[in-house]
């Protein structure tokens, strides 16, 4: 497993702004991740879903980026959810308590279902 450059693709699914994340979430993903988030936020949709299905590595700088996105989403009155984190990073989201503040779902379908249930 070697380092992979970060990419993000936005789409809208079942009334939620979904951001598909690819590659590593670290210092190098700062600009890309923030830009994708801004785009998602501007949809004014009530839910933004971060899809980690294609992410193998998140470091502490990446955690800090997600914390800042969470703060922005809360300010904008939007819910930030995550899906498809692997077991290890799910644990890290629990240890850091990010899981207490953003829904952590095993896959996209359950996240979107959870989002509509929440809404």
């Amino acid at each position, binding site marked *: 497993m070697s380092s992979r450059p970060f990419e993000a693709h936005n789409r809208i699914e079942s009334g939620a702004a979904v951001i598909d994340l690819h590659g590593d979430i670290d210092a190098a993903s700062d600009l890309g991740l923030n830009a994708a988030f801004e785009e998602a936020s501007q949809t004014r949709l009530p839910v933004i879903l971060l899809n980690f299905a294609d992410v193998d*590595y998140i470091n502490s700088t990446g955690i800090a980026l997600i914390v800042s996105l969470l*703060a922005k989403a809360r300010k904008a009155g939007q819910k930030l959810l995550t899906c498809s984190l692997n077991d290890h990073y799910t644990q890290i989201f629990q240890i850091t308590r990010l899981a207490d503040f953003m829904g952590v779902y095993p896959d996209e379908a359950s996240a979107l279902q959870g989002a509509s249930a929440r809404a």
Partner: protein
Amino acid sequence: MIMGIRDFWLGITRRAPAATRASLAPMEPTVARSTSTSALLDVDLAPDDPLVAHFQGAPGAVEVGKLHLESPALEQLRAKGVHLVVPLVAQGELVGLLNLGPRRSEQEFSADDRALLSNLASQAGPALRVAQLVRQQQAEASERERMAQELRVARIIQQTLLPKSVPALPGWQVAVHWQPARAVGGDFYDFLTLSDQRVGFFVGDVTDKGVPAAMVMATTRSILRAAAERELSPGKVLERANELLCPDIPQNMFVTCLYVILDPSTGGLEFANAGHNLPYRRGSDGLHELRATGMPLGLMPGMNYEQKEGFLERGETLLLYSDGLVEAHSPQREMFGVPRLEALMVDHTGGPGLIEHLLAELAGFTGQGWEQEDDVTLVALEREAAPSARSSPGGQPATGKPRAAGVELSQQGSTANPMATGAAAGGDSGGHSSSSAGSEKDEPRRLLGKFSLSSQTGNERQAMERVAELVQELGLPDDRFNRLKTAVAEATMNAIEHGNQNRPELLVEIEVLVSDRELAVRITDHGGGPVPSARAQPDLDAKLAGEQPPRGWGLFLIEKMVDEMRLAGDATHHTMELVLHR
């Protein structure tokens, strides 16, 4: 004859008290204010006053009445009845003003008068400048002398803080050498006879040198003494000293310190180490480092200090030393280094004089005219081969009281002005890089592998992958494996960013060691700066509320990922040891 001019010279040469209408207002280079004597006129001439530019550009005498400038100084000159001003200029700089009142004849100043004044000014300006420079140099010399005197006093005070003698212990030889790089230093040593008749030995090193280090050294020594008088366990003493020092020590300063308690009746040793150079035990079975881990004092509160035990057999020697010895450089910029120290200790055949032997080798290595780079402290503790073979020097009974001999307080270096050490050599092997040596009580560890990486963001991924390859043979469960990988990546990032300050030429060195009980990954940086002392637990609520920055998860994550995180270091290295119990 112009009366004003005569009065001016009288004023300058005799300081005539008579009222005069001419005066000289010499100006200091930055503040144009004359001293107040009867011949001198007080004029506040600010550097940005337009009059300054006018005078600098106007050769010869200037009639005050004909000037039209928005100038506070000009107002003052008018108010004091000055009619004519002759600027005194040297090397393009206005150094004084020759101020003249009206002629007593009530005639206008003639062309001859002005020519004479200009002539006078052209000679007086440079002369005045020379006088000003001489005065300035005298003031600087006297300031330097005052500072040198203060440093001499500081050195005397610091020496009074060090023991005046070494402990006289029957059957033991104790020798000390302490030599600061400057008049005062940050190295220290201390001896303490404990209530149970054991003897405590401290050797410490404050970051930096000179006066700031000496001030921290004085505080640290008092704190350590107080802690050692309360506690009998070296680990607890360092723990307590660290707690007391943390709130008071200036940022970016810390203290490495080794504390050894010797039981002179048995040779038993207990020791703990706050990031100081590892001491050496030299015995018939070779040379051994006495290893105990712990962070330097003053970096972060709440530290624990590993405590170890050892033993000195008859004929064995223990050497405690500071990094000034091993980090000395030859004229070719080669470092004295730990391997050389080890070889010298092995070669020395025992008996008195280990310290002299090391100092002679150091002098030969550094050559004549060495500007000592750092403080050097050596404490040697030798258990005599046979208890009666040599009487205790001075023949004192076994009171454990210090005797008034045996301490070498070198007088060298008091005027040394060490040059800046320049760029540190990146790849030195340092006192803490692992060798096969270790306390004989340490559980044997097997080296699975070691490698180093340059300090570039992103290299933590490589560190993670290479450690993952090295530990593969151990068959860790997935969960433990992934946690170790995250901890290694975070610790490497920490070493790159904080320890090595993102300087690509500095290496992060990684060793993977395994024993029956544990797997350890040692990550060492060579940046020399303290590891971040801010260890506030990251609080997500506070971060979301903007009360804490979003960053600051690294150390927190590491601690959560592994079973133990051990920190150790000295003035030039920090090692983070990540441990998984097996």
